[in-house]
Structure formats: structure tokens, C-alpha cells
């Protein structure tokens, strides 16, 4: 009786895990397949002003922005997303939400985008 329960639990958990992993992997790859061109195009709009040799601390916020951009691209398309992100960058400059890296004075979002650009482009 005990053995059957263990087997049942093991098989059940394994099945659910494999299912979840497969689902998210499929979702990730399908999103990447659908939007990879769009994402590249998106990042092409930001000029690479930072030198490549610099290593940046890629923190959680960068990934959050990445997911946000992907989500915006899927919802709004390239042009609108670019417009919204550029507005956000301009607003940050206006409000003084800026950061200095290698002498460059950049908005916080702009820096994250340039970091992400090196990943995609």
C-alpha cells in the first residue's frame, strides 16, 4: 500500500514537472521565434555608444525590463513600443533618473537597454 502511494506521488510530481517545464520551454521558444526579429529590430534603434569590453552587472531589473519589452512588443508592435520606451527615457532624463557609466551620462532605462542590446544584437 505504501509502495503504491510512493510510486503514485513520484509519477505524479514527475509528470507535472515535465509538463510545466515543457509548457514554459515551448512558450519561451515560441515567443523567441515569433519576436526575435522584432526584438533585434527594437534594439537596433539604440546606438551602441558603450564599449563592448565593459562587463556590466546584469541585475534582476534588466531581466524585468527584458520581459516588459517582450510583452510590449507582443501587445503593441515595434513602432509603438519604441515610442513608449523613448518617451520613458526622455522622462527619466527630465527627472534626473540618470546613471554614469564609463563617463557616459545615461538614463537608467537606456543603460539597461544597451546592456540587453549586447545580448541580442
Amino acid at each position: 500500500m505504501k509502495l503504491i502511494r510512493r510510486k503514485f506521488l513520484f509519477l505524479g510530481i514527475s509528470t507535472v514537472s515535465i509538463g510545466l517545464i515543457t509548457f514554459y520551454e515551448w512558450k519561451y521558444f515560441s515567443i523567441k521565434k515569433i519576436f526575435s526579429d522584432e526584438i533585434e529590430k527594437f534594439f537596433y534603434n539604440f546606438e551602441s555608444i558603450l564599449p563592448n569590453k565593459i562587463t556590466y552587472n546584469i541585475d534582476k531589473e534588466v531581466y524585468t525590463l527584458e520581459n516588459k519589452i517582450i510583452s510590449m512588443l507582443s501587445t503593441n508592435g515595434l513602432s509603438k513600443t519604441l515610442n513608449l520606451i523613448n518617451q520613458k527615457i526622455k522622462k527619466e532624463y527630465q527627472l534626473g533618473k540618470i546613471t554614469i557609466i564609463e563617463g557616459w551620462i545615461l538614463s537608467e532605462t537606456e543603460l539597461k537597454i544597451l546592456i540587453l542590446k549586447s545580448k541580442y544584437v
Partner: protein
Amino acid sequence: MFKDLKVYPSNSILEYDICIVGSGPAGISLAKKLFDTNLKIAVLESGGIEPEPEYQELNIGENSGPSYLSLDSSRLRCFGGAGKLWAGVCAPFKKDEFYKKAYIPLSGWPISFSSLESYYKEAAEMLGISYEKFYDKSLLGNTFKEKSFNELNKNNTFLSPNIFQISNKNHRDLAEKYKNEFETSRNIDVIFHSTATEINLIPNTKSVESVSVADLFGNKSTIKSKIFVLACGALENPRILLSSNKLLENGVGNNYGFVGTCFMSHPGIKDVAEIYKTSSEKCITHDINNNYKVVFEVSSNERNNQQILRHSLSISPQKNFKNKSSYNFSEVISDGVKLFENTSFLKKIVCHFQKNNTFSPKNWNLDIGLEQPPRLSNNLKLHFSKDRLGIPKINMHWNDISQIEKDTVLKSVRTMARELGALGIGRIKYKKMLLSGQSFKIDDPINHHIGTTRMSESPKTGAVDKNCKVFGVSNLYIAGSSVFATSSIVNPTYTIVALSLRLGDYIKKSIL
């Protein structure tokens, strides 16, 4: 009339109503204001009509501070003085510069902008420029630099443009412009080779009795007058006051030790940042004129919010190639490769040959000119060594850059970056030299000499009152940039002329 000290018998006593020591822009403007009176006026000039090396040597002094200031360059002992070296760049002070600022000790003037405005208008006429043009917004946006960053004139939040006019060479050399009038004047004597060697006070020290003058050939005389005006620049004015110490140990008008203190200049910090223009390179058609230029700075409100000094943000296109007198072979090859790599090269060539066109690149340089705050530690004292006339030389203690100047550079670049970013027209990168502090170690004072007999409400904080009269001496006045309470960022000559005209009016009213 033009005269020379040597024509008078030695030890002559010459009597006048007004004695003006110095014939630079201040002395000439003041004398010009008094042309139409019947007052008998002496204008004493240390040199001749043209500069002479042996008289120029009287300018030599010593430096004891951490920064070097050339005391003999940018000064001329001749009719017209330093005005003959002036490039003619004019702009008035801003209204808010006359106010006291809590974050700048000793800031504020005892006069307001409005008390100077009519004299700025009069000075503009003398210098062949237009006062109204300084505030004419229709002039904005037409120059090459503005067109390269044209949004800066339209939608800016943090930066404001300033119009600087250029007085042309027919007007800016006031000595040349009014030479005939002085030469033929019946009430004004310009006496050449008459260096003031001593201000002689009456025994109770409350007024000046005479000024002793001498040339380099042993001729000496005494000038007696009702009113005396020192107008020989921000280095010589305190020098003669401090060295006239027969009756007062600390010199004339120096009861509180303010004579010689608060020396200011306009340090220029080169290559502080590079600007990357986000719009594409293009050939720009623009007005070509040499009458005015537009310079940006952080606006007054933002400047006060950030507690920084006035400054000028001067942009210029980056040069692709180094400015060198000679190239070695590898440099020729390297620059040759760059030339062919550069896809805009052909565009540049085409643009170059089109009339009124200039090529606007993506990369620009940013230089900053700085106001200096009045500081007691930047001062001029007397050196133990003396010049050929027996006057103690100047001992200059100058420390050109303090923390507030450094903060001004860093914050103004940051603010410009915010403006360009908010408008979406560019990005800025601080240069390594600036971040490492190296940029601040370069001596480049632009040779403007300001302060040293500053105007103030009280003798406890300055050397002259709001009418440019030396505290404690009833008939001694000072004209020129030495009376400036603060240094601003604008070239001083225009304000020197305006203040001298104002002093001329005051003297007229008080003597006639």
C-alpha cells in the same frame, strides 16, 4: 590735449579739477563722459601712445599661490590700455547676479541691475553694438552651432541661451576711436609717461591731496586735484593703494584689509566632455556673421537650485585629425585610413564648397568657462622687490579652482546631458581628464582681472561704496573691473564701460 611728463619742469605741481589715473577703457569712458563740462581734467597714462617695452616691464610681478597668473601679459601701458587687446566680446550681467546668494559668501552687489541699465545702453552706443539685441529672441537659432542642436532653443527646460555681441575693431578700441577728440580737447590733458607712484593723503587721511607721478628718466611731478579716480586695472589699482602707506600702514582705503582681496578671473576648463549628437551628420546652411554669438548655460533658476556658479557651455565640432605642425609617416598612414573609412568624407567635401554651409558632425567637444566666487584667499599683496620707479611689485596668491567651481563643471555637464537626453538630441560623456581631476590643474584664466577693490555696502566687506568711492577717503574713486563685487561669466569690458559712465554722471552731479 596730448602732453608728456618730460615737457614739464621737474617737480612741477599741476592742478586740475579731476585726475584720472589710467587711460584704458575705464579711464577713457569716464573722461569721455566729462568731455562736455568745463572741468579741467588730467588723464595720466603710464606709457606712451603705443606700448613701449621698458614701461611694459613695470607690470612684472611675482606669484606665490598654487596657480600661476601671468601679471605682465594681457596688460598694456599705453593710451587705450588693455582695451587694445580686447576681442570686443560684450554681454551685460544678468539681473540675478546683483542679488546675494546664500551659497556664495560675499555675493551680491550694493546696486541693482536697473541702476546700471541706462549706462549699459550708453556703453552699447560707444561700442557700436545694440543693447536691445542682447534680448532679441529672433536672433536665436540661426548660428551653425544652434542649428546643429536646434531643439535647444525651442523646448529647453534646463539651459538658457545668451547672446554675446562683438564690438568691431572700429569701435572697441576706444583710444583709437576718440583719439582726435582727446588730442584736440581744451579741458582734458592726457599726460603720457606719468606713472602714479604715490597717493598723497592730507594729514588727517580723510582725503587725497595729490598724486605723485614719474617717468623712467627721472622726471617727476605732482598732480593736485579736487577728485581723483584710479582707473588702471584690477592689478594696479590695489597696488598703488597698498603702496601709498606713508600715513596709513595698511595703505589707502584699507582699514579692514579688503584692498587686494577677492581677486577673480574666468578659468576656462577645456575638453570636459564629448557630446554625441543622436541626429545624423548633415550639411547646415546658416547665417555667417561676426556680430554676435550664442552661448548656453544652465538657467538662473536651475543654477540656484543646484547651488552652482555662472558658466558658459561652449560647444565645438570635434576635429577628425589632430592639429599638428608635422606628421610622421605612420600618422599619415593612420589618418589616411581614417579618411577612407569615414563615409561622410565626401559629404564634407561637398558641404565645404557650398556657400554659407558648414558640416555638422555627430561628435562635439564641450569646454566650460567659469565664474569665480569672491574669496579672501585669492589676493594680491606687495612683494618686497621693487620696480624701476621704486614701487613694490605685485605678489599674487591665486588658487584658481575651489570645490564650488569643480561642482559647477560636473553639475552643468550633467544638466546639459539631461537636457539633450530629454529632448532626444544627444548624449554626453565626461572626459577621463575631468573625472580624474586633471582638467582642473591646467592654468587658463583667460586673463580677465576682476575684484581687488570690490564694491560693497560696508567697508567691512569691500573697498568702495555703491558710487565707487573708496571707503574712508572723501575724494578718491575707482573705475574698472576691480570694483566688481562678483565676476559673472561675461567679458568684463562692457560692464567696465557702463560703470565708468555711471561714475562720470555721479561725479558731474557731485562737482557741478
